[in-house]
């Protein structure tokens, strides 16, 4: 039996690696995916382009303008002075927000009224928009605190010029400490997720298309007339794909560390062990898809219907916390979600076995279940 299995493994490896073009197709796409994801998925906001419209034009309003200009979150790129210009800037998406100071701004501050600053935000991208409104608010509140402090010390001075003033102002500061990802780089969060995703898509597609291809071009018949038994065929087909998946894993992990400087705080061995558990799921799903598809086109479409939800509901970029309860329930039986947790835990938090064993058990149970189901279906269809 092992002899026959190793024959199939040899055949598969030769078939996959024979052509230089195919070799290239096995290992290049994961790397390109990593690069595109790594560079493109960046939800951080810095130097957001804004327009500054000062209708008051007083020292007070100019100070506020300086506060915006010196903030690292904003870059003032336009100084419109008409309504049409504002409309034009927003319609062409040249700026993300327009800060408008209305006439009477300095007067209101002096009279002790609340002076309004209009923050006009392009809400098209709601994520960027909420970050922008958040930061704009922080700048305005910071400025307000400064104005208030100045006003009060001035008032105190005029009342009792001899009284000591400085140092007696109560104030609360927020000192923030960020764990695991101190610079809040979104890359550190996303790239380990990409690693999980690449392993899934590569092995699942290879398995599904690889098996259906034999059916489609008729070589499955030839294999069937040999003394090879279905279970041997399955094992022999899967081991090469699993190996390629693991090679891709190492490749992508090394690239993540070298190219993107993602901290790798946990154990490489544990990552490898967890990946093997996860491979059972992705290979099993690939095999399952091959049993329900007659053509590669069908296999491709079916894989898409599996990988897309698995990917989107894994917490990769969109936090599961925000999803409606029904969708959340689906996410919690999604093996990719558990693998994503493990990979991120190992990379960023240095999680060990005692932290990830519940996820590992889930992956093992899910993997064995789907592999058994698919192998059974595969066998039944061949008989």
């Amino acid at each position: 039996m092992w002899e026959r299995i190793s024959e199939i493994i040899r055949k598969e490896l030769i078939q996959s690696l024979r052509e230089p073009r195919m070799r290239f197709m096995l290992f290049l796409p994961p790397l390109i995916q990593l690069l595109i994801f790594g560079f493109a998925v960046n939800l951080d906001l810095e130097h957001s382009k804004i327009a500054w419209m000062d209708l008051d034009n007083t020292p007070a309003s100019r100070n506020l303008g300086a506060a915006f200009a010196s903030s690292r979150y904003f870059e003032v790129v336009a100084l419109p002075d008409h309504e049409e210009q504002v409309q034009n800037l927003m319609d062409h998406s040249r700026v993300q927000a327009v800060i408008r100071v209305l006439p009477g701004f300095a007067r209101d501050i002096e009279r002790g009224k609340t002076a309004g600053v209009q923050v006009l935000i392009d809400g098209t991208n709601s994520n960027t928009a909420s970050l922008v409104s958040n930061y704009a608010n922080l700048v305005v509140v910071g400025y307000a605190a400064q104005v208030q402090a100045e006003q009060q010390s001035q008032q105190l001075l005029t009342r009792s010029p001899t009284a000591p003033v400085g140092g007696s102002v109560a104030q609360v500061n927020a000192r923030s400490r960020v764990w695991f990802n101190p610079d809040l780089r979104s890359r550190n969060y996303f790239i380990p997720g990409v690693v999980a995703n690449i392993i899934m898509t590569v092995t699942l597609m290879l398995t599904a298309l690889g098996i259906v291809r034999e059916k489609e071009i008729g070589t499955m018949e030839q294999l069937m007339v040999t003394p090879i038994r279905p279970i041997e065929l399955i094992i022999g087909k899967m081991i090469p794909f699993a190996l390629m998946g693991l090679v891709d894993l190492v490749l992508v992990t090394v690239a993540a560390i070298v190219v993107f400087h993602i901290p790798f705080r946990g154990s490489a061995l544990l990552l490898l062990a967890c990946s093997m558990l996860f491979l059972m799921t992705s290979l099993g799903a690939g095999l399952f898809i091959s049993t329900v598809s007659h053509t590669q086109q069908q296999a491709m479409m079916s894989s898409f219907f599996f990988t897309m939800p698995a990917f989107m509901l894994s917490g990769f970029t969109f936090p599961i916390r925000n999803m409606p309860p029904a969708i959340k329930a689906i996410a919690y039986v999604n093996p990719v979600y558990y693998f994503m947790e493990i990979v991120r835990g190992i990379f960023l938090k240095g999680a060990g076995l005692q932290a990830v064993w519940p996820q590992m058990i889930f992956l093992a149970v899910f993997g064995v279940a789907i592999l058994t189901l698919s192998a059974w279906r595969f066998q039944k269809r061949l008989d």
Partner: protein
Amino acid sequence: MNLRRTGAVTRKEMRHILRDPRSLTMALAVPVLMLLLFGLALSLDVDHIPTLIYDADRTATSRALIEQFRGSSYFQILGYPDNYKAIENAIDRNQILLGVVIPPDYSRRIESGKEADVQLLIDGSDSNTASIALGYAQGVVQLYSLDLRSQGQNRKGGLAARKSPPVDSLLRVWYNSRLESKNYVVPGLIAVILMIIGSVLTSLTIAREWEMGTMEQLLSTPLRPTELVLGKMAAYFVVGIVDLSISIGCGVLVFQVPLRGSFLLLVFTSCLFLFGTLFWGIYLSAGSKTQLEAYQMAMLSSFLPAFMLSGFVYAIESMPPVIQAVSYLVPARYFVVILKGIFLKGVGLDVLWLETLFLAGYAAVIFVLATRRLKQKIT
């Protein structure tokens, strides 16, 4: 070019599509799946941030600050542990995102008019959520500090209390006033859906003929490459148009995304984009000997860029300059600008003419390339 022969190819391809109802159903279900996934499940909005507050001070002053956190809908306070370790543990176990620590000398320092620090501990793994959450928490503390300051100092100086802050920001959001994720995800999604249908599905068509050996048969007929390309394209164009209708209908009727601009312009630009993607799929297909290879190339060169570099979810402005430059080569980028412009901003050709022109140019260039590549392969 002969219209009769082109029509024959289209008929053959249509029959091929119709004979495989499973693939067709799936092709038509793609927009439904994507819209459901993105429209229902995806939200980057941050609220109800799970929070623990450790109050080491336990005075009326510290409770006043806690009240501020409790009053905000952004935070969901899960408990008040009495030690620091509990917060560390909860962050480690992913139970909370934010920990607020009020130090033991907090009220003493405030009463003696000094600066008091409040520590915010945050799990930064998900940096997007973390920075939004941090912004909210800092806002709460800052506003509270401002309030405290005016109260305290007015009492000291015997001044009339100032009831409101001296400067306040008045937020006004244009185009998507309630900042709903679906309004910006759904229009952009149409580009991704058309890309999947146009390029990924189509990339298999000619590769399949090569792989199965039926290309030889086609070659023995008087069919010319231009006719083959146009004929195959026409069949998948029909599938694309049906998908487009499903996407627009679903987006507007089910998800209530506002369509503020011209419907006609939307259809016109979508067709231009669809031509480009279909020709690109055929171009890839002509050069691939196996379907697996064609599929891999299509995913890499069309789906991935349309998904990642089009600005559909991930803002292009946040990418490094090199990647931003690359994104100018991605047709989906222009189409996403058009889609968001028509849907949300309600702008017309006067704003979008450059993007439209690009889509037309792209389709024409790729058509020529695809025909030429097929010609080379055949001879």
